[in-house]
């Protein structure tokens, strides 16, 4: 009998492994599980790269089919000591060693992703000073009901105090005995295509920095984020920078593509929120909402970008699955309030563009629209705008003097009804062709004779 059963003052509260695993994987989608593993790979790569702005020698390769899933990177690998003490520990260890500006999460992310994908997990790591292989047979592990939870390095595959060449380091994970979800999805070209598109979007900044990501033989290409910044238009900018974190927000306009409009939020270069047109960012509607009107056609050109950077990824205001923002985070609440103000700044122009087009204002008179259309032909990459020499301020600049709305008092519409007999009589008398002509001619007649 164990000590616990003897102590009558204690209530048994330790979890069973199968319950634990089923809870863990419930909160995450297959797609996000793969995303987590990519994030870990990116962290290992950034740790190795002497210049985090240049990732041109780095590569992540993912292969998936209905038999297996594998992900391989040429980052720094995982030291045996890290694996032993932290990486496989469930929940965050107080002594966790995270790399600076990381996006992966040792605490939950990696194991949760493994369990979601399948039951036979094989890890092979070559780190600068150690190397190991480790196999997890989840079904077997579940059956072991001992109080201690642990995995074991593969026999004979662990070596420490070695010195491995940088060109050799990296981590490879191969998962077999796939879960039912994985089997179904990995057989589906649509799923794989979507995965490629979404990973490309999430890591656009890293791909722009030279990182190669290959999924099933297809090399992902970077999406560009852009803003107009020229002599006519200058985006609004706000920043808050301290020693351990930096927040930058930039908002303006870019080419009209309904799909791409909205807010984008990056956390340590990882895109968390893309093209957001919902209340999560600013588009709450104004009837009771704290943000701006609901997103609609008028705002298609709006682009806003938020860049959070923190040495400690625990300070980033994202949710645990990195699929959205933590709406209760004080940092995000504060930033969101700025985002709302900055959206309104850009709306000053967008409202005017719409107003200028109203009431049959001839195209030639739409001077503001014409100038903006011209500017929209050459938006610039956001990174370039952020590094521009021109000082950006917390104000959206546009050529307000060009605004030329049609005067509401330019013409008056008159409408009245008369009997058909009287109308026909007047129409004949005026020799008019239609109703409008009858109206105009009768008015002119009065004006010419009485005024």
């Amino acid at each position, binding site marked *: 009998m164990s000590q616990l059963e003897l102590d009558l003052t204690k209530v048994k509260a330790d979890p069973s492994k199968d319950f634990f695993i089923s809870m863990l994987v419930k909160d995450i989608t297959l797609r996000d599980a793969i995303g987590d593993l990519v994030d870990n790979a990116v962290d290992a790569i950034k740790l190795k790269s002497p210049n985090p702005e240049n990732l041109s020698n780095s590569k992540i390769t993912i292969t998936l089919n209905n038999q297996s899933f594998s992900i391989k990177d040429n980052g720094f690998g995982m030291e045996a000591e890290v694996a032993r003490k932290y990486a496989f520990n469930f929940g965050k260890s107080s002594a966790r060693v995270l790399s600076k500006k990381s996006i992966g999460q040792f605490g939950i992310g990696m194991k949760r992703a493994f369990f979601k994908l399948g039951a036979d997990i094989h890890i092979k790591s070559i780190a600068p000073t150690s190397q190991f292989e480790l196999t997890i047979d989840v079904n077997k592990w579940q059956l072991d009901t001992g109080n201690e939870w642990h995995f074991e390095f593969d026999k004979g595959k662990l070596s420490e105090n070695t010195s491995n060449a940088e060109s050799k380091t990296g981590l490879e994970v191969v998962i077999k005995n796939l879960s039912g979800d994985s089997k179904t999805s990995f057989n589906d070209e649509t799923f794989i295509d979507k995965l490629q598109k979404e990973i490309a979007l999430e890591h656009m900044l890293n791909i722009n920095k030279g990182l190669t990501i290959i999924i099933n033989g297809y090399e992902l290409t970077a999406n560009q984020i852009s803003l107009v910044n020229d002599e006519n238009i200058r985006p*609004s900018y706000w920043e*808050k920078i301290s020693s351990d974190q930096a927040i930058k927000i930039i908002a303006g306009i870019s080419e009209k593509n309904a799909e791409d409009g909205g807010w984008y939020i990056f956390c340590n270069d990882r895109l968390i929120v893309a093209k957001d047109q919902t209340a999560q960012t600013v588009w709450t*509607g*104004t*009837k*009771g*909402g*704290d943000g*701006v009107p609901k997103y609609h056609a008028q705002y298609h050109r709006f682009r806003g970008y938020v860049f959070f950077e923190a040495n400690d990824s625990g300070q980033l205001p994202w949710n645990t699955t990195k699929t959205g923002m933590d709406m209760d985070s*004080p*940092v995000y*609440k*504060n930033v*969101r*309030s*700025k985002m*709302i*103000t*900055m959206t*309104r*700044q850009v*709306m*000053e122009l967008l*409202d*005017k563009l719409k*107003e200028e087009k109203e009431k049959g204002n001839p195209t030639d008179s739409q001077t503001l629209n014409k100038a903006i259309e011209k500017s929209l032909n050459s938006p610039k990459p956001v990174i370039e705008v952020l590094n521009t020499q021109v000082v950006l*301020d*917390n*104000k*959206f600049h546009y050529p*307000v003097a060009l*605004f030329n*709305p*049609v*005067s*509401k*008092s330019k013409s008056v519409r008159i409408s009245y009804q008369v009997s058909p007999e009287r109308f026909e009589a007047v129409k004949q008398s005026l020799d008019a062709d239609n109703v409008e002509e009858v109206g105009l001619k009768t008015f002119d007649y009065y004006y010419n004779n009485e005024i």
Partner: protein
Amino acid sequence: MSSSFEKINYTLRPNKSIERKMMCEAFNRLSFLDQLNNFRYVGMGSPYFADFILFHKNLGITDLISIEKEEAKRNRFEFNKPYSCIDIKYGNSSTIIPNLELDRKKTIMWLDYDDKVSDFMFADIDTFFANALPGSVFTLSINVEEDFLPNMQDSDRQQFSLKEHRLNQLIKRIGKDRLPNKFMNENFNTKNSIKVCLEMFNRQINTTLIARNLQLPIKIKYKQIFNFVYKDNATILTIGGIIYDRTQKSKIDKMCLSELDFLRSDEESYKISAPNLTFREIKALDKALPDKHNSETEKGKFKNKILQAIPVIPTDIKSYAKIYRYYPNFAEALV
């Protein structure tokens, strides 16, 4: 539709004129916080610019911005601009104000909306309180006149009661989500309209400041100073106050705002009501004011013998005594 400035000559609204002068007197005390010409005034000048003239003359403010939504009448506004230092920005307040860089200069803002309470006003409050420098003043005026059932055929009229109609109108303007639950069953006559507007504005101010203060080492507070109600034709509510942080607290105390008896820091409004008096009566009353008996009466008669002798009803005399320093003199004149 014509604007209210085209229906009424703003300079001939006696209660509004009194309110403006009272506000000016309060703004004068901002000199304890900073030199007055370091402030910027942001208002809605309409073509009369009465507030701009008063504040430029009395406070010496030279950075003045007027927000004007009717771009189409641009020529008329520019023609009526009384001073060169007024910059008119055309557009909606909710998109103009965010681009004013409120965090660069202390602002005295008076959003003198013509309208009844509307959703866009909350956006304006939000922008101001999220961005304005501590030491700035925010004021807004709205029409709180109660709604009446439209003239309809008898058959249609049965559809809604007056109470339901008022609630529907309010929800149409601000949305159901914004209306505090405790007001859901109110009859929104003028009195309750004032109550609900005050509550909703204060909630918005509070919410915005909470979000702003989350990341600030020195917290920003709001102190309400204005809560005026008056009626020249429609009933108007003006609320406003100052934002400050603890480094400014002692300067705020020095302003001794409590000396100004027309200031209100709670939900009880100060009612401005100018009596209609002739010039002769005004002259006679002024001679007896300020009254050392504080216009007290005994058995229906003023303790002050001079006041007692003036043949104006006592309530008008009392009203006048409260506001005589701000009472406007309207006369037909060739100018």
